[in-house]
Structures are given as structure tokens and as C-alpha cells.
């Protein structure tokens, strides 16, 4: 420390205006004197005075009696009130005190700035009913500031903590953080192309069974690599793959099945898993919209060989940008880690060297013997790591995940009950048998022959300040990105995508996210019902 005052314990005149100088109290200077000679001080007291949860014990040996300081009670006093210097506190102690003060101010910022906005009463027609949004409190903000103060920036202690806790939550052996859900899907798929998987590796031209009704980045990695997606139609009730068509989609080139749990509703995992096991296929569960959903009592994302999550703000929990890949398979773990971290063979953590103890004593490929293992590449990888600040937010969100899940279920239930009389107008989503979905949204599909279009009801709701969404791409094969692709060569379609097209044309969804209260749900029900009533 170069500071003359900061971090020093001084003996201070007490009371501050006492001319007799009969008493004194110790205090730590937290700043240098400003232009007026004023210094911020945190007073030190005996431990008998401990009255607040924010006190810090003064390190033993610095003062003659056990003492603590009170960083929540800052006094700005002129340096002339100092009677004498006592000692210097260790840097790590000063760091803790300064961090505590910053975090206390952060809590205050949350309480004054964010909380009022989050707690604003719902005014029908005026308040925006978002389809999704971040739900947070001062813990997320404090974790974010805390990790910022550390300034580690890249993958670090918060990331490691998050990975461990996510794996524990899911009941799976390995979880890896990445910078987005789309990156998670990319990493999950590319892991299957590793030469370490030998004859089971997915090669260019191999086929991967999937669906077209979903988000594009479930499919994009397959096409980007040069494998062939084989699209199967979906079931209108569950919004997921029609498992009766799996056998028809199979070919000698099939190597994997990659599917999302649509809007949180698990696909028929048992049927898909049995199919994969029967034909020695990999199964990737795109769990980006379903974290917290269960199938037969076990979390989705943990049934297949690899699961993925997204922590983009609309999702079941958030860290801004962010995602995760998880597996129980030790070999896949090794591949995922390598591909996430530049394709390297080395597994040293950031800032560490020679974890393997053989950094300069091995033969790799045709490199010279002893070539630095830190720069040996066993895959053509990426850098998909998140920042530690993202992980810090995620740690706070994980604590709330079960509560979020319950709110999503409850909001879905209220919506379903509220719209109960409209079964002649809409197809409603149904939970897959054996599942307990943590719904991402509530999808409504217009029945054939209703006297209005999807866009007409959607416009009505948007004007009423209710945000809506299509089921992402609807039918991805009809998008401009497919124009240059050749059906039968670059992709295949099994049978017809009749239900997929129906969803593309007639479906939309509204939110059930945990930030929505009863009033917002009831308002949505009223607006949907009133539109239908006037259209009949």
C-alpha cells in the first residue's frame, strides 16, 4: 500500500468536539484526506459493542483487546481530529472492508433503483406483460459487483462454483459453463465429431435426427459441420417430436438424435432413449428452454449423452449471456473441455501451468518430443468460456431456480384454467405423459376453421400491451438460410412436416415467467377471451 492514511488505524479524539481530550476511540482511515482534509473513517469498538451483521473482526494482535470495525457506519472527519497513528491493517483486511462498503451501497442501489420498478403494481392495459424477463434481487447485483471488484474477468472461482452447483442440482457428474445456449448446442454437437470417439464419431455426411419446429441453433451446428439433419414432424399436443416416425427417419448413416424439450415440455424421453440405445445413437438434449423440467422424476438434460442449457435473460434462470453443457460420460467430458477451451490437450486452469506434471516430457503427434503441452491441440476447438461476472450472477440465480420453477408451473396452471372454455378455438399444450414441465411459455394453436388468423389475435394482444412470440422458427426448413441447401443431400425430411407447418402458421405463445403475477395472467386471459368473443 502506498497510501499514507488509508488502511491505518488512528486514535481519534472523542467526543469529536471535546476540547479536554480526555477520551479517544480507534478508527480505520478508508480514504486519503480530500482537498478539505476530510477522511472517511470506520470506527473500531470492542466486541461487546457488536450490534450489526456487518461487523468485521480486527485481526488478532493489532490492538490490545479483541475488536471489530463497523463498515456500515462511516464517518467523514477532518484529519485534525487524529491524535496519533496506531498501526496498519493487512491489505486483505482492508480489501474486505472496502468490498463490504461497496456491497452495502450496491444493496442500497438495488433497493432504491431496481426494486421499485420490479414491485410496481400491475395496471391492466398500461403495464407491459412481457413474455419473459429477468427476475433478480440484490444478491445478483452484489455477486456481479463482487466479481467485478476481483477483476478476474475470465473463467474463475465463480465459474467453478457455478459448474459444481449446477451439476449437483441436476444430479450429473460434469457441467461446463459456456458463453451462450447456442454455444452450448454447438459444443455439444461438435463434441460428437471428436476422433477420440472412433467409429461412433459423427462424420460429415452422417445423419442426425431432429425437428424443424424449434430454435435454429439446435440445427445450425449440424449443418455448419456438414452433417445432415433429418427432420421429423412434431405432435401438436406436446409440441415435441412425433416418436412414431423415428424408425422411418433412421438410415445407415444415422449417428445421433438432437432434440429440444419444446417450451419446457419434455419430449417422450423413454421412446427416444430406447430408440437411441437400440441403434447405438448419441442423444443430445437441448435443454435450453426446460431447465427444471422433470421426466419420470429426473431432470431433463440428464437422460441423454449430453444436455445443454441457456441462461439468456428470458430463460429459466439468467446470467445475461451464458449457457452450459453437461454429461455423465468421462470421455465426452474430456472432449467438451478441450473443444470449449481452444481445442487444447492441456487442462490447466486459467493462470496455472503444468497440472499434468508432464508439460515438457511427452510425445504429441509429430511434434518434437517434449513440446510444451500447454500449446498442444487435440481438437479444432473454440473459446466458448463465459466471464466470471456472468457466473457470479448465475450462482445467485441457481438459489432461486426451484422457486422460479414453481411459479412457472403455477402461472401455466392459471392460464390453462382461465382459458378452459376455449377448447373449440385453440389446441392447448399438454404435458408429455410421465413429465413435470417447468414451462417456458404457453403455446396456443388456432384450430382449423376459426374466424380469425394467428396474426390478428397476436396484433390484438400486442396492442393490449401483451407480448407474444411465435414458436421460434416455426418450420426452419422454410427460412432463407435453407435456400441454398438441397433437400435429400444437405438435409432430409421424413414424411411430411404437416404439424410443423400448422404451428408455423397458426401458433403463438405468451409468457408464464416468474416475474408475472396473478393480475397479469388474469389480464391475458381476459384479453384472449374478449378477442375470441368478438370474433365468434
Amino acid at each position, binding site marked *: 500500500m502506498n497510501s499514507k492514511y488509508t488502511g491505518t488505524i488512528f*486514535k481519534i479524539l*472523542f*467526543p*469529536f*468536539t471535546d*476540547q479536554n481530550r*480526555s*477520551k*479517544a*476511540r*480507534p478508527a480505520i482511515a478508508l480514504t486519503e484526506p480530500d482537498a478539505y482534509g476530510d477522511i472517511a473513517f470506520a*470506527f*473500531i*469498538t*470492542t466486541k*461487546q*459493542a457488536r*450490534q450489526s451483521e456487518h461487523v468485521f473482526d480486527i485481526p488478532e494482535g493489532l*490492538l*490490545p*483487546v479483541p475488536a471489530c470495525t*463497523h463498515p456500515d*457506519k462511516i*464517518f467523514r*472527519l*477532518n484529519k*485534525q*481530529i487524529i491524535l496519533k497513528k*496506531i498501526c496498519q491493517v493487512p491489505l486483505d483486511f482492508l480489501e474486505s472492508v472496502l468490498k463490504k462498503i461497496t456491497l452495502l451501497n450496491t444493496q442500497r442501489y438495488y433497493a432504491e433503483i431496481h426494486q421499485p420498478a420490479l414491485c410496481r403494481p400491475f395496471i391492466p392495459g398500461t403495464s407491459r406483460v412481457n413474455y419473459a424477463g429477468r427476475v433478480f434481487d440484490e444478491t445478483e447485483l452484489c455477486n456481479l459487483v463482487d466479481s467485478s471488484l476481483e477483476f478476474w474477468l475470465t473463467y474463475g472461482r465463480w465459474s467453478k462454483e457455478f459448474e459444481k452447483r449446477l451439476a449437483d442440482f441436476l444430479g450429473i457428474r460434469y457441467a461446463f459453463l459456456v458463453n451462450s445456449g447456442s454455444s452450448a448446442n454447438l459444443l455439444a454437437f461438435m463434441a460428437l465429431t471428436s476422433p477420440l470417439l472412433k467409429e461412433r464419431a459423427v462424420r460429415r455426411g452422417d445423419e442426425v435426427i431432429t425437428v424443424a419446429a424449434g430454435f435454429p441453433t439446435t440445427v445450425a451446428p449440424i449443418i455448419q459441420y456438414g452433417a445432415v439433419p433429418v427432420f421429423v414432424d412434431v405432435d401438436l399436443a406436446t409440441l415435441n417430436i412425433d416418436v412414431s416416425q423415428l424408425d422411418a427417419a433412421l438410415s445407415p448413416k444415422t449417428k445421433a438424435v438432437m432434440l429440444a424439450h419444446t417450451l419446457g415440455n419434455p419430449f417422450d424421453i423413454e421412446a427416444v432413449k430406447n430408440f437411441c440405445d437400440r441403434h447405438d445413437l448419441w442423444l443430445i438434449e437441448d435443454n435450453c428452454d426446460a431447465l427444471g423440467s422433470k421426466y419420470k422424476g429426473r431432470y431433463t438434460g440428464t437422460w441423454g449423452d449430453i444436455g445443454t442449457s441457456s441462461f439468456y435473460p428470458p430463460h429459466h434462470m439468467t446470467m445475461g449471456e451464458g449457457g452450459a453443457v453437461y454429461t455423465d460420460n468421462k470421455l465426452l467430458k474430456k472432449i467438451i473441455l478441450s473443444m470449449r477451451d481452444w481445442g487444447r490437450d492441456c487442462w490447466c486452469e486459467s493462470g496455472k501451468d503444468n497440472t499434468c506434471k508432464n508439460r515438457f516430457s511427452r510425445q504429441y503427434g509429430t511434434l518434437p518430443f517434449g513440446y510444451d503441452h500447454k500449446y498442444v491441440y487435440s481438437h479444432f476447438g473454440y473459446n466458448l468460456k463465459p466471464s466470471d461476472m456472468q457466473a457470479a450472477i448465475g450462482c445467485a440465480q441457481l438459489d432461486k431456480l426451484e422457486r422460479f420453477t414453481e411459479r412457472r408451473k403455477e402461472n401455466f396452471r392459471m392460464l390453462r384454467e382461465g382459458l378452459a372454455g376455449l377448447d373449440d378455438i385453440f389446441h392447448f399444450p399438454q404435458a408429455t405423459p410421465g413429465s413435470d414441465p417447468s414451462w417456458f411459455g404457453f403455446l396456443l394453436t388456432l384450430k382449423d376453421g376459426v374466424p380469425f388468423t394467428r396474426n390478428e389475435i397476436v396484433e390484438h394482444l400486442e396492442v393490449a400491451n401483451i407480448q407474444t412470440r411465435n414458436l421460434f422458427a416455426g418450420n426452419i426448413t422454410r427460412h432463407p438460410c435453407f435456400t441454398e441447401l438441397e433437400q435429400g443431400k444437405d438435409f432430409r425430411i421424413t414424411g411430411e412436416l404437416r404439424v410443423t407447418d400448422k404451428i408455423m402458421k397458426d401458433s403463438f405463445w405468451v409468457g408464464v415467467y416468474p416475474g408475472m403475477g396473478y393480475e397479469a395472467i388474469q389480464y391475458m386471459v381476459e384479453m384472449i377471451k374478449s378477442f375470441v368473443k368478438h370474433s365468434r
Partner: protein
Amino acid sequence: MQAIRQIIARTDIALVRIPEEFGEQVEVIILPVASKSALSAESQSLLGLQEQTGFVADVLTDEREDVWNEL
């Protein structure tokens, strides 16, 4: 109670302006300026205000904290 508190030069005592509402007679206490306390009266007042915080009144003033007097 109204009061005037100023630090002035020893020879400037006649320059102190006393408001009429103080009445015909006033009580005068003259103290030497403490050698290390060259703070303005305003600064002294602000220090006085900080002495009135709950933490000072309840914690720092507690006589058990007098263990620090001989530090």
C-alpha cells in the same frame, strides 16, 4: 438557546456583532483556541452533529469503550 461561536484575533473582540434580540446583557466566555484544533466554527458544528448519531450515542459513548482512551 442562541449562541455565537467564532475564532477571532485577540485584538478583534470589539468587532463581534451581537444581534439585538440577545437583549441588553450577554454572557461572555473567552477560551484560547486549542493548539491542534484550528477548525472553523462550522466544522466544529458539523463534528457536533455527527456526535449526535445513534451509533455514537449508543456504541462509541458506552463506557466499556473507554478501554481505548489509553491506546
